[in-house]
Protein backbone atom coordinates (compact mmCIF):
# COMPACT_ATOMS: atom_id res chain seq x y z
CA UNK A 1 0.00 0.00 0.00
CA UNK A 2 1.69 3.15 -1.13
CA UNK A 3 -0.78 5.79 -0.08
CA UNK A 4 -2.99 5.87 2.99
CA UNK A 5 -6.27 4.07 2.36
CA UNK A 6 -9.08 5.71 4.34
CA UNK A 7 -12.86 5.47 4.36
CA UNK A 8 -15.75 6.84 6.33
CA UNK A 9 -18.40 4.60 7.78
CA UNK A 10 -21.44 5.61 9.80
CA UNK A 11 -21.91 4.15 13.28
CA UNK A 12 -24.98 2.14 12.30
CA UNK A 13 -23.26 0.61 9.29
CA UNK A 14 -20.18 -0.11 11.39
CA UNK A 15 -22.24 -1.90 14.01
CA UNK A 16 -24.05 -3.96 11.42
CA UNK A 17 -20.69 -5.16 10.09
CA UNK A 18 -19.43 -5.80 13.64
CA UNK A 19 -22.48 -7.95 14.37
CA UNK A 20 -21.51 -10.20 11.48
CA UNK A 21 -17.93 -10.39 12.71
CA UNK A 22 -19.18 -11.66 16.06
CA UNK A 23 -19.95 -14.96 14.35
CA UNK A 24 -16.56 -15.31 12.73
CA UNK A 25 -14.29 -13.95 15.44
CA UNK A 26 -14.05 -13.89 19.15
CA UNK A 27 -14.23 -10.14 19.54
CA UNK A 28 -12.54 -8.37 22.44
CA UNK A 29 -12.94 -4.67 23.14
CA UNK A 30 -12.94 -2.10 25.96
CA UNK A 31 -16.09 -1.69 28.02
CA UNK A 32 -16.64 0.43 31.13
CA UNK A 33 -16.39 -1.69 34.21
CA UNK A 34 -16.53 0.09 37.57
CA UNK A 35 -15.42 3.26 35.84
CA UNK A 36 -12.41 1.60 34.21
CA UNK A 37 -11.93 0.73 30.56
CA UNK A 38 -11.52 -3.00 30.60
CA UNK A 39 -11.12 -5.26 27.59
CA UNK A 40 -13.95 -7.80 27.67
CA UNK A 41 -15.58 -10.40 25.43
CA UNK A 42 -18.03 -8.77 23.08
CA UNK A 43 -21.41 -10.33 22.39
CA UNK A 44 -24.59 -9.26 20.65
CA UNK A 45 -25.70 -7.93 24.04
CA UNK A 46 -22.89 -5.48 24.64
CA UNK A 47 -21.41 -4.56 21.26
CA UNK A 48 -23.09 -1.16 21.36
CA UNK A 49 -21.25 -0.28 24.57
CA UNK A 50 -17.75 -0.59 23.16
CA UNK A 51 -15.53 2.39 23.95
CA UNK A 52 -13.67 3.28 20.82
CA UNK A 53 -12.09 6.54 21.89
CA UNK A 54 -10.97 7.85 25.33
CA UNK A 55 -7.57 6.27 26.11
CA UNK A 56 -5.93 2.90 26.58
CA UNK A 57 -7.70 0.10 28.46
CA UNK A 58 -6.34 -1.28 31.71
CA UNK A 59 -4.91 -4.49 30.22
CA UNK A 60 -1.80 -4.29 28.07
CA UNK A 61 -2.03 -5.93 24.65
CA UNK A 62 0.44 -8.67 25.67
CA UNK A 63 -2.32 -10.17 27.85
CA UNK A 64 -3.98 -11.55 24.73
CA UNK A 65 -0.84 -12.87 23.02
CA UNK A 66 1.15 -14.10 25.99
CA UNK A 67 -1.18 -15.29 28.76
CA UNK A 68 0.00 -14.66 32.32
CA UNK A 69 0.17 -18.43 32.87
CA UNK A 70 0.08 -21.25 30.34
CA UNK A 71 1.38 -24.75 29.74
CA UNK A 72 4.11 -24.73 27.09
CA UNK A 73 5.20 -28.36 27.34
CA UNK A 74 3.08 -30.03 24.74
CA UNK A 75 1.76 -29.51 21.26
CA UNK A 76 0.14 -26.49 19.73
CA UNK A 77 -2.39 -24.37 21.57
CA UNK A 78 -6.01 -25.40 21.02
CA UNK A 79 -7.16 -24.33 17.61
CA UNK A 80 -9.31 -21.42 18.45
CA UNK A 81 -11.46 -18.93 16.61
CA UNK A 82 -9.51 -15.98 15.30
CA UNK A 83 -9.53 -13.02 17.65
CA UNK A 84 -10.52 -9.53 16.73
CA UNK A 85 -9.06 -7.02 19.15
CA UNK A 86 -10.84 -3.70 19.03
CA UNK A 87 -9.95 -0.35 20.53
CA UNK A 88 -6.20 -0.97 20.93
CA UNK A 89 -4.30 2.29 21.36
CA UNK A 90 -1.03 3.48 19.85
CA UNK A 91 0.94 2.89 23.07
CA UNK A 92 0.06 -0.80 22.98
CA UNK A 93 0.55 -1.20 19.27
CA UNK A 94 4.04 0.20 19.45
CA UNK A 95 4.97 -2.47 22.01
CA UNK A 96 4.11 -5.18 19.52
CA UNK A 97 7.35 -5.20 17.44
CA UNK A 98 9.32 -5.90 20.65
CA UNK A 99 7.14 -8.91 21.47
CA UNK A 100 7.20 -10.09 17.87
CA UNK A 101 11.00 -10.02 17.82
CA UNK A 102 11.44 -11.51 21.29
CA UNK A 103 9.16 -14.46 20.49
CA UNK A 104 10.20 -14.84 16.87
CA UNK A 105 13.57 -15.71 15.39
CA UNK A 106 15.58 -18.91 15.68
CA UNK A 107 13.70 -20.22 18.70
CA UNK A 108 10.28 -18.81 17.82
CA UNK A 109 7.61 -19.51 20.40
CA UNK A 110 4.88 -21.48 18.61
CA UNK A 111 2.28 -20.55 21.22
CA UNK A 112 2.81 -16.83 20.75
CA UNK A 113 3.04 -17.23 16.99
CA UNK A 114 -0.21 -19.19 16.77
CA UNK A 115 -2.08 -16.52 18.70
CA UNK A 116 -0.43 -13.69 16.80
CA UNK A 117 -1.34 -15.22 13.44
CA UNK A 118 -4.96 -15.58 14.52
CA UNK A 119 -5.32 -12.07 15.88
CA UNK A 120 -6.71 -9.16 13.90
CA UNK A 121 -5.98 -5.79 15.44
CA UNK A 122 -8.40 -2.91 15.03
CA UNK A 123 -6.85 0.03 16.80
CA UNK A 124 -8.31 3.44 17.47
CA UNK A 125 -7.27 7.02 18.22
CA UNK A 126 -7.18 8.37 21.74
CA UNK A 127 -9.55 11.26 22.32
CA UNK A 128 -8.85 11.98 25.97
CA UNK A 129 -5.55 10.96 27.57
CA UNK A 130 -5.46 9.75 31.18
CA UNK A 131 -3.43 11.84 33.60
CA UNK A 132 -0.71 9.20 33.49
CA UNK A 133 -0.35 9.14 29.69
CA UNK A 134 3.01 10.31 28.36
CA UNK A 135 3.48 8.82 24.89
CA UNK A 136 4.77 12.08 23.43
CA UNK A 137 7.57 12.20 25.99
CA UNK A 138 9.05 8.98 24.59
CA UNK A 139 8.61 9.63 20.89
CA UNK A 140 5.06 8.39 20.45
CA UNK A 141 1.74 9.99 19.65
CA UNK A 142 -1.84 9.28 20.81
CA UNK A 143 -2.98 7.86 17.50
CA UNK A 144 -1.70 4.78 15.66
CA UNK A 145 0.50 5.27 12.61
CA UNK A 146 1.38 1.65 11.88
CA UNK A 147 1.13 -1.89 13.14
CA UNK A 148 -2.67 -2.17 12.91
CA UNK A 149 -4.87 -4.07 10.52
CA UNK A 150 -7.49 -1.33 10.74
CA UNK A 151 -7.53 1.92 12.66
CA UNK A 152 -10.64 3.79 13.69
CA UNK A 153 -10.89 7.48 14.38
CA UNK A 154 -14.22 8.43 15.90
CA UNK A 155 -15.56 11.56 14.18
CA UNK A 156 -19.08 12.89 14.50
CA UNK A 157 -21.44 9.95 14.30
CA UNK A 158 -19.12 7.48 12.68
CA UNK A 159 -15.58 6.43 12.07
CA UNK A 160 -12.75 7.20 9.72
CA UNK A 161 -11.25 3.83 8.94
CA UNK A 162 -7.65 3.46 7.88
CA UNK A 163 -6.65 0.18 6.30
CA UNK A 164 -3.24 -0.96 7.58
CA UNK A 165 -2.86 -4.43 6.11
CA UNK A 166 -4.34 -6.93 3.70
CA UNK A 167 -5.79 -8.74 6.70
CA UNK A 168 -7.58 -5.51 7.52
CA UNK A 169 -8.72 -5.02 3.92
CA UNK A 170 -10.16 -8.54 3.86
CA UNK A 171 -12.38 -7.77 6.83
CA UNK A 172 -14.53 -5.67 4.48
CA UNK A 173 -15.00 -8.36 1.85
CA UNK A 174 -18.65 -8.05 0.91
CA UNK A 175 -19.15 -4.79 2.77
CA UNK A 176 -17.49 -2.46 0.28
CA UNK A 177 -20.65 -0.55 -0.42
CA UNK A 178 -20.95 0.50 3.22
CA UNK A 179 -17.61 2.31 3.00
CA UNK A 180 -17.59 5.83 1.71
CA UNK A 181 -14.63 7.65 0.23
CA UNK A 182 -13.33 10.25 2.61
CA UNK A 183 -14.44 13.82 1.94
CA UNK A 184 -12.31 16.84 2.73
CA UNK A 185 -14.34 17.83 5.81
CA UNK A 186 -13.78 14.44 7.36
CA UNK A 187 -10.09 14.56 6.59
CA UNK A 188 -9.86 17.98 8.22
CA UNK A 189 -11.82 16.81 11.26
CA UNK A 190 -9.35 13.97 11.72
CA UNK A 191 -6.35 16.28 11.49
CA UNK A 192 -7.89 18.73 13.92
CA UNK A 193 -8.78 16.07 16.44
CA UNK A 194 -5.32 14.56 16.32
CA UNK A 195 -3.69 17.95 16.78
CA UNK A 196 -5.83 18.64 19.82
CA UNK A 197 -5.16 15.32 21.53
CA UNK A 198 -1.47 15.62 20.81
CA UNK A 199 -1.49 19.05 22.43
CA UNK A 200 -3.28 17.71 25.50
CA UNK A 201 -0.70 14.98 26.05
CA UNK A 202 2.15 17.42 25.47
CA UNK A 203 0.65 19.95 27.83
CA UNK A 204 0.10 17.59 30.73
CA UNK A 205 3.66 16.35 30.39
CA UNK A 206 5.23 19.74 30.17
CA UNK A 207 6.47 19.61 33.79
CA UNK A 208 8.32 16.39 32.95
CA UNK A 209 10.06 17.57 29.78
CA UNK A 210 13.39 15.87 29.15
CA UNK A 211 16.54 17.90 28.71
CA UNK A 212 18.23 15.09 26.81
CA UNK A 213 17.02 12.38 24.45
CA UNK A 214 15.55 9.35 26.16
CA UNK A 215 18.29 7.00 24.99
CA UNK A 216 20.92 9.23 26.60
CA UNK A 217 19.14 9.56 29.93
CA UNK A 218 21.26 6.97 31.70
CA UNK A 219 24.61 8.20 30.48
CA UNK A 220 26.74 9.00 33.50
CA UNK A 221 23.78 8.43 35.82
CA UNK A 222 24.43 4.90 37.03
CA UNK A 223 25.37 6.04 40.53
CA UNK A 224 22.86 8.92 40.62
CA UNK A 225 20.95 9.57 43.82
CA UNK A 226 17.80 9.76 41.67
CA UNK A 227 17.64 5.96 41.86
CA UNK A 228 17.71 5.85 45.65
CA UNK A 229 15.13 8.58 45.95
CA UNK A 230 12.61 7.03 43.60
CA UNK A 231 13.20 3.43 44.74
CA UNK A 232 12.64 4.47 48.36
CA UNK A 233 8.86 4.01 48.13
CA UNK A 234 8.96 0.87 45.96
CA UNK A 235 7.28 -2.08 47.65
CA UNK A 236 8.51 -4.61 45.06
CA UNK A 237 4.98 -5.58 44.05
CA UNK A 238 5.98 -5.91 40.42
CA UNK A 239 2.89 -4.08 39.16
CA UNK A 240 5.03 -1.88 36.89
CA UNK A 241 6.49 -4.99 35.25
CA UNK A 242 3.26 -6.90 34.91
CA UNK A 243 1.27 -3.94 33.56
CA UNK A 244 3.96 -2.86 31.09
CA UNK A 245 3.13 -3.60 27.44
CA UNK A 246 6.77 -4.34 26.56
CA UNK A 247 7.82 -6.32 29.68
CA UNK A 248 7.85 -9.98 28.74
CA UNK A 249 10.15 -11.70 31.23
CA UNK A 250 8.86 -15.11 32.19
CA UNK A 251 9.64 -18.05 34.45
CA UNK A 252 9.24 -21.70 33.57
CA UNK A 253 7.95 -24.04 36.22
CA UNK A 254 8.18 -27.81 36.11
CA UNK A 255 7.28 -28.23 39.77
CA UNK A 256 3.88 -29.57 38.92
CA UNK A 257 4.50 -33.14 40.11
CA UNK A 258 2.96 -34.03 36.79
CA UNK A 259 5.13 -35.03 33.88
CA UNK A 260 4.65 -33.29 30.59
CA UNK A 261 3.50 -30.01 32.09
CA UNK A 262 5.67 -26.93 31.92
CA UNK A 263 4.07 -23.74 33.12
CA UNK A 264 5.20 -20.41 31.83
CA UNK A 265 4.23 -17.30 33.76
CA UNK A 266 4.96 -13.61 33.75
CA UNK A 267 7.85 -12.67 36.00
CA UNK A 268 8.97 -9.33 37.38
CA UNK A 269 12.57 -8.15 37.67
CA UNK A 270 11.67 -6.07 40.74
CA UNK A 271 11.13 -9.26 42.76
CA UNK A 272 14.07 -10.05 45.03
CA UNK A 273 14.05 -13.68 43.91
CA UNK A 274 14.00 -12.89 40.21
CA UNK A 275 17.65 -13.70 39.46
CA UNK A 276 18.52 -15.82 42.51
CA UNK A 277 20.38 -19.02 41.64
CA UNK A 278 20.14 -22.36 43.40
CA UNK A 279 23.22 -21.43 45.40
CA UNK A 280 21.51 -18.26 46.66
CA UNK A 281 23.55 -15.70 44.72
CA UNK A 282 22.07 -12.84 42.75
CA UNK A 283 23.65 -10.02 40.73
CA UNK A 284 21.12 -7.49 42.07
CA UNK A 285 20.62 -8.13 45.79
CA UNK A 286 19.61 -4.53 46.56
CA UNK A 287 16.22 -3.10 45.62
CA UNK A 288 17.78 0.00 44.12
CA UNK A 289 19.80 -2.21 41.74
CA UNK A 290 16.64 -3.96 40.59
CA UNK A 291 14.80 -0.66 40.27
CA UNK A 292 17.60 0.80 38.16
CA UNK A 293 17.74 -2.37 36.09
CA UNK A 294 14.10 -1.93 35.05
CA UNK A 295 14.76 1.57 33.80
CA UNK A 296 17.94 0.46 32.05
CA UNK A 297 16.02 -2.34 30.36
CA UNK A 298 13.26 0.01 29.18
CA UNK A 299 15.52 2.82 28.08
CA UNK A 300 18.57 0.96 26.78
CA UNK A 301 18.63 -2.84 26.74
CA UNK A 302 15.43 -3.43 24.76
CA UNK A 303 16.55 -0.89 22.20
CA UNK A 304 19.88 -2.71 21.83
CA UNK A 305 18.11 -6.07 21.62
CA UNK A 306 15.17 -5.23 19.39
CA UNK A 307 15.86 -1.80 17.91
CA UNK A 308 13.30 0.23 19.76
CA UNK A 309 12.74 1.95 23.08
CA UNK A 310 11.11 -0.28 25.70
CA UNK A 311 8.77 2.44 26.98
CA UNK A 312 5.72 3.51 25.00
CA UNK A 313 4.42 6.04 27.53
CA UNK A 314 1.21 4.14 28.32
CA UNK A 315 1.53 5.18 31.95
CA UNK A 316 0.35 1.88 33.43
CA UNK A 317 3.45 1.66 35.64
CA UNK A 318 2.48 5.00 37.18
CA UNK A 319 -1.16 4.11 37.57
CA UNK A 320 -0.41 0.73 39.13
CA UNK A 321 2.31 1.87 41.53
CA UNK A 322 1.53 1.49 45.23
CA UNK A 323 4.51 3.69 46.05
CA UNK A 324 3.35 6.59 43.86
CA UNK A 325 6.50 6.34 41.75
CA UNK A 326 6.18 8.32 38.56
CA UNK A 327 8.54 7.28 35.79
CA UNK A 328 8.17 10.70 34.16
CA UNK A 329 9.51 12.42 37.26
CA UNK A 330 12.43 10.00 37.52
CA UNK A 331 13.28 10.49 33.85
CA UNK A 332 12.98 14.25 34.13
CA UNK A 333 15.34 14.32 37.10
CA UNK A 334 17.81 12.03 35.36
CA UNK A 335 17.77 14.33 32.37
CA UNK A 336 18.73 17.39 34.33
CA UNK A 337 20.73 16.14 37.27
CA UNK A 338 24.45 16.85 37.18
CA UNK A 339 26.79 14.07 36.25
CA UNK A 340 25.02 13.51 32.97
CA UNK A 341 27.45 12.73 30.23
CA UNK A 342 30.32 12.49 32.69
Amino acid at each position, binding site marked *: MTSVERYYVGKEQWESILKDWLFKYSVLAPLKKAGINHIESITSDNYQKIIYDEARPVQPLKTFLLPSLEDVAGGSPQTQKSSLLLGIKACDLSALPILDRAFGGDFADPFYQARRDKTVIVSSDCSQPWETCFCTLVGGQPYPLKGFDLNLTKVWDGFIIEVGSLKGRDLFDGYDKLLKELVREEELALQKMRREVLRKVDKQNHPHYLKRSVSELLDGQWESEVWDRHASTCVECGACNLACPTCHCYFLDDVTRREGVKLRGWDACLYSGYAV*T*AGGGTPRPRLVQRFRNRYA*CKLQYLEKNYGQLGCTGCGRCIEGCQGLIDMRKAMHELSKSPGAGS
Partner: protein
Amino acid sequence: MMKKNPYASQNAVIEKVVQETPGIKTFQVRPDKAFSFRCGQFAELLVPGVGEAPFAPSSPAYRPELLEFTIQNVGYMTSRLHAMDAGDRVGLRGPYGNGFPLDAFKGRDILLLIGGVGFPPARALLYSLLQDRASYPRIVMCYGARSPRDIVYQYQLDDLGKEIEFHITVDRPDEGWTGKTGVVTTLLDKVSLNLGKTAAVVIGPPIMMKFGTLKLLKVGFPPESIYLSMERKMYCGVGQCRHCMIDHLFICKDGPVFQFSQLQHFSDIWE
Protein backbone atom coordinates in the same frame (compact mmCIF):
# COMPACT_ATOMS: atom_id res chain seq x y z
CA MET B 1 1.89 -27.10 10.97
CA MET B 2 3.13 -26.59 14.48
CA LYS B 3 6.59 -25.13 14.59
CA LYS B 4 9.16 -26.88 16.74
CA ASN B 5 8.51 -26.26 20.40
CA PRO B 6 11.70 -24.79 21.88
CA TYR B 7 10.57 -25.61 25.43
CA ALA B 8 10.10 -29.33 24.81
CA SER B 9 12.77 -31.79 25.94
CA GLN B 10 13.87 -35.05 24.43
CA ASN B 11 14.01 -38.13 26.63
CA ALA B 12 17.27 -39.39 28.07
CA VAL B 13 18.13 -42.22 30.45
CA ILE B 14 20.67 -42.11 33.25
CA GLU B 15 23.11 -44.97 32.62
CA LYS B 16 25.54 -44.51 35.45
CA VAL B 17 26.09 -42.28 38.45
CA VAL B 18 29.58 -41.58 39.80
CA GLN B 19 29.98 -40.09 43.26
CA GLU B 20 32.75 -37.55 42.73
CA THR B 21 32.75 -35.91 46.16
CA PRO B 22 30.29 -35.94 49.06
CA GLY B 23 28.15 -33.28 47.31
CA ILE B 24 28.97 -33.80 43.63
CA LYS B 25 27.92 -36.57 41.28
CA THR B 26 28.56 -37.24 37.61
CA PHE B 27 25.52 -38.48 35.70
CA GLN B 28 26.11 -40.43 32.53
CA VAL B 29 23.09 -39.80 30.35
CA ARG B 30 22.06 -41.41 27.07
CA PRO B 31 19.64 -39.29 25.05
CA ASP B 32 17.16 -40.91 22.65
CA LYS B 33 18.83 -39.02 19.80
CA ALA B 34 22.51 -38.00 19.77
CA PHE B 35 22.89 -34.57 21.37
CA SER B 36 25.48 -32.73 19.28
CA PHE B 37 27.15 -29.80 21.01
CA ARG B 38 30.33 -27.76 21.07
CA CYS B 39 32.35 -27.67 24.26
CA GLY B 40 31.21 -24.79 26.43
CA GLN B 41 27.65 -24.94 25.18
CA PHE B 42 25.03 -26.07 27.66
CA ALA B 43 21.86 -28.09 27.90
CA GLU B 44 18.71 -27.60 29.93
CA LEU B 45 18.49 -30.76 31.99
CA LEU B 46 15.00 -31.66 33.18
CA VAL B 47 13.99 -33.76 36.15
CA PRO B 48 10.39 -34.45 35.12
CA GLY B 49 7.81 -32.92 37.40
CA VAL B 50 10.54 -31.25 39.45
CA GLY B 51 12.59 -28.69 37.57
CA GLU B 52 15.02 -27.79 34.88
CA ALA B 53 18.42 -26.08 35.00
CA PRO B 54 21.28 -25.30 32.63
CA PHE B 55 24.42 -27.46 32.73
CA ALA B 56 27.37 -27.73 30.41
CA PRO B 57 28.27 -31.33 29.61
CA SER B 58 31.59 -32.43 31.08
CA SER B 59 32.01 -35.14 28.46
CA PRO B 60 33.71 -34.81 25.07
CA ALA B 61 31.82 -33.06 22.30
CA TYR B 62 32.89 -35.85 19.96
CA ARG B 63 30.70 -38.29 21.92
CA PRO B 64 27.19 -36.85 21.52
CA GLU B 65 25.44 -40.18 22.13
CA LEU B 66 26.53 -40.50 25.76
CA LEU B 67 26.82 -37.32 27.80
CA GLU B 68 28.10 -36.64 31.26
CA PHE B 69 26.97 -33.91 33.60
CA THR B 70 28.86 -33.30 36.83
CA ILE B 71 26.49 -31.61 39.23
CA GLN B 72 26.68 -30.28 42.75
CA ASN B 73 23.75 -30.78 45.10
CA VAL B 74 22.79 -27.20 45.92
CA GLY B 75 19.07 -26.67 45.41
CA TYR B 76 15.68 -28.30 44.94
CA MET B 77 16.21 -29.61 41.41
CA THR B 78 19.76 -30.85 42.02
CA SER B 79 18.80 -32.53 45.29
CA ARG B 80 16.10 -34.49 43.45
CA LEU B 81 18.56 -35.30 40.69
CA HIS B 82 21.05 -36.56 43.25
CA ALA B 83 18.38 -38.97 44.50
CA MET B 84 18.09 -40.50 41.02
CA ASP B 85 19.89 -43.59 39.81
CA ALA B 86 20.80 -45.61 36.74
CA GLY B 87 17.68 -46.36 34.71
CA ASP B 88 15.88 -43.19 35.72
CA ARG B 89 14.63 -40.87 33.04
CA VAL B 90 15.47 -37.20 32.54
CA GLY B 91 14.85 -34.66 29.77
CA LEU B 92 17.30 -32.68 27.67
CA ARG B 93 16.96 -29.67 25.40
CA GLY B 94 19.59 -27.63 23.66
CA PRO B 95 22.42 -27.22 22.98
CA TYR B 96 22.40 -23.51 23.74
CA GLY B 97 24.96 -20.73 23.71
CA ASN B 98 28.15 -20.09 21.83
CA GLY B 99 30.69 -22.49 23.36
CA PHE B 100 34.44 -21.93 23.51
CA PRO B 101 35.98 -20.24 20.44
CA LEU B 102 38.39 -23.03 19.54
CA ASP B 103 39.33 -21.31 16.29
CA ALA B 104 40.46 -18.24 18.21
CA PHE B 105 42.40 -20.49 20.61
CA LYS B 106 44.34 -22.31 17.91
CA GLY B 107 48.06 -21.58 17.96
CA ARG B 108 47.88 -20.00 21.39
CA ASP B 109 48.91 -21.20 24.82
CA ILE B 110 45.86 -21.96 26.92
CA LEU B 111 45.57 -21.21 30.62
CA LEU B 112 42.60 -22.68 32.45
CA LEU B 113 41.88 -21.03 35.78
CA ILE B 114 39.24 -23.24 37.33
CA GLY B 115 37.47 -23.33 40.66
CA GLY B 116 35.27 -26.03 42.20
CA VAL B 117 32.48 -27.22 39.91
CA GLY B 118 33.88 -25.06 37.14
CA PHE B 119 35.83 -28.18 36.26
CA PRO B 120 33.02 -29.94 34.32
CA PRO B 121 32.84 -27.50 31.38
CA ALA B 122 36.62 -27.21 31.55
CA ARG B 123 36.85 -30.97 31.17
CA ALA B 124 34.79 -30.83 27.97
CA LEU B 125 37.14 -28.13 26.74
CA LEU B 126 40.20 -30.21 27.68
CA TYR B 127 38.87 -33.18 25.70
CA SER B 128 38.58 -30.94 22.65
CA LEU B 129 42.01 -29.37 23.16
CA LEU B 130 43.68 -32.75 23.68
CA GLN B 131 42.03 -34.19 20.60
CA ASP B 132 43.90 -31.53 18.64
CA ARG B 133 46.89 -31.28 20.98
CA ALA B 134 49.37 -30.07 18.33
CA SER B 135 47.36 -26.85 17.80
CA TYR B 136 48.02 -25.63 21.34
CA PRO B 137 51.71 -25.23 22.21
CA ARG B 138 51.10 -25.14 25.94
CA ILE B 139 48.11 -26.04 28.07
CA VAL B 140 48.27 -25.02 31.72
CA MET B 141 45.50 -25.69 34.20
CA CYS B 142 45.26 -24.19 37.67
CA TYR B 143 42.52 -25.84 39.69
CA GLY B 144 41.34 -24.90 43.14
CA ALA B 145 39.00 -26.89 45.35
CA ARG B 146 37.68 -26.08 48.78
CA SER B 147 39.25 -29.14 50.42
CA PRO B 148 40.83 -32.40 49.26
CA ARG B 149 37.40 -34.07 49.61
CA ASP B 150 35.95 -31.61 47.09
CA ILE B 151 38.30 -32.44 44.22
CA VAL B 152 36.40 -33.89 41.25
CA TYR B 153 37.69 -36.42 38.68
CA GLN B 154 40.44 -37.59 41.07
CA TYR B 155 40.66 -40.82 39.07
CA GLN B 156 41.69 -38.87 35.95
CA LEU B 157 44.10 -36.31 37.36
CA ASP B 158 47.28 -38.40 37.11
CA ASP B 159 46.67 -39.02 33.42
CA LEU B 160 45.78 -35.38 32.87
CA GLY B 161 49.08 -34.36 34.50
CA LYS B 162 50.93 -36.29 31.80
CA GLU B 163 49.20 -34.40 28.99
CA ILE B 164 49.17 -30.84 30.32
CA GLU B 165 50.77 -28.75 33.07
CA PHE B 166 48.34 -29.35 35.90
CA HIS B 167 48.48 -27.42 39.17
CA ILE B 168 46.14 -27.91 42.07
CA THR B 169 45.49 -26.22 45.38
CA VAL B 170 42.92 -26.48 48.16
CA ASP B 171 41.60 -23.73 50.40
CA ARG B 172 41.38 -25.95 53.47
CA PRO B 173 43.82 -28.88 53.63
CA ASP B 174 43.21 -32.01 55.69
CA GLU B 175 45.80 -34.13 57.48
CA GLY B 176 46.70 -36.21 54.47
CA TRP B 177 47.10 -33.32 52.05
CA THR B 178 50.68 -32.80 50.85
CA GLY B 179 49.93 -30.41 48.01
CA LYS B 180 49.55 -26.65 47.83
CA THR B 181 47.22 -24.67 50.04
CA GLY B 182 45.52 -21.37 49.21
CA VAL B 183 43.02 -19.93 46.78
CA VAL B 184 43.42 -20.83 43.11
CA THR B 185 44.83 -17.46 42.11
CA THR B 186 47.94 -18.12 44.21
CA LEU B 187 48.91 -20.84 41.73
CA LEU B 188 49.44 -18.18 39.09
CA ASP B 189 52.38 -16.76 41.02
CA LYS B 190 54.42 -19.89 40.25
CA VAL B 191 53.52 -20.19 36.56
CA SER B 192 55.39 -18.17 33.97
CA LEU B 193 53.26 -17.39 30.94
CA ASN B 194 53.78 -15.73 27.61
CA LEU B 195 51.05 -13.14 28.06
CA GLY B 196 50.92 -12.04 24.46
CA LYS B 197 50.36 -15.58 23.30
CA THR B 198 48.04 -16.98 25.95
CA ALA B 199 44.27 -17.23 26.12
CA ALA B 200 43.01 -17.54 29.69
CA VAL B 201 39.78 -19.39 30.44
CA VAL B 202 38.13 -18.73 33.80
CA ILE B 203 35.33 -20.94 35.12
CA GLY B 204 34.11 -21.29 38.66
CA PRO B 205 31.87 -19.80 41.31
CA PRO B 206 31.19 -16.05 40.90
CA ILE B 207 33.53 -14.92 43.66
CA MET B 208 36.36 -17.01 42.24
CA MET B 209 35.71 -15.71 38.72
CA LYS B 210 35.78 -12.15 39.96
CA PHE B 211 39.08 -12.46 41.81
CA GLY B 212 40.51 -14.74 39.12
CA THR B 213 39.79 -12.10 36.49
CA LEU B 214 41.22 -9.29 38.63
CA LYS B 215 44.36 -11.34 39.18
CA LEU B 216 44.80 -12.05 35.47
CA LEU B 217 44.42 -8.34 34.72
CA LYS B 218 46.98 -7.56 37.40
CA VAL B 219 49.40 -10.09 35.96
CA GLY B 220 49.04 -8.26 32.66
CA PHE B 221 46.48 -10.17 30.60
CA PRO B 222 44.62 -7.92 28.17
CA PRO B 223 40.83 -8.05 28.78
CA GLU B 224 40.21 -9.57 25.37
CA SER B 225 42.45 -12.56 26.21
CA ILE B 226 40.40 -13.47 29.26
CA TYR B 227 37.50 -15.80 28.44
CA LEU B 228 34.80 -16.23 31.06
CA SER B 229 32.10 -18.88 31.11
CA MET B 230 29.33 -16.98 32.86
CA GLU B 231 26.40 -18.30 34.85
CA ARG B 232 23.16 -16.78 35.98
CA LYS B 233 19.66 -17.78 36.86
CA MET B 234 18.20 -19.05 33.61
CA TYR B 235 14.90 -20.47 32.45
CA CYS B 236 14.45 -20.53 28.69
CA GLY B 237 18.00 -20.87 27.37
CA VAL B 238 16.90 -19.27 24.11
CA GLY B 239 17.10 -15.52 24.71
CA GLN B 240 13.51 -14.81 25.70
CA CYS B 241 12.94 -14.92 29.45
CA ARG B 242 15.67 -12.31 30.19
CA HIS B 243 16.70 -13.75 33.57
CA CYS B 244 20.34 -14.34 32.63
CA MET B 245 21.09 -10.91 31.24
CA ILE B 246 24.25 -8.92 31.87
CA ASP B 247 23.36 -5.43 30.69
CA HIS B 248 21.79 -6.07 27.26
CA LEU B 249 23.61 -9.36 26.63
CA PHE B 250 21.96 -12.75 27.03
CA ILE B 251 24.29 -15.25 28.71
CA CYS B 252 22.24 -18.03 27.12
CA LYS B 253 22.46 -16.71 23.58
CA ASP B 254 25.36 -14.26 23.34
CA GLY B 255 27.41 -16.34 25.83
CA PRO B 256 27.91 -18.19 28.05
CA VAL B 257 31.52 -17.61 26.98
CA PHE B 258 32.49 -13.93 26.92
CA GLN B 259 35.77 -12.13 26.59
CA PHE B 260 36.17 -9.88 29.60
CA SER B 261 36.48 -6.95 27.19
CA GLN B 262 32.80 -7.51 26.29
CA LEU B 263 31.69 -7.16 29.90
CA GLN B 264 34.17 -4.92 31.66
CA HIS B 265 32.17 -1.70 31.32
CA PHE B 266 28.94 -3.18 32.66
CA SER B 267 27.90 -3.09 36.30
CA ASP B 268 26.35 -5.90 38.33
CA ILE B 269 28.48 -8.46 36.48
CA TRP B 270 29.32 -10.65 39.43
CA GLU B 271 26.82 -12.15 41.81
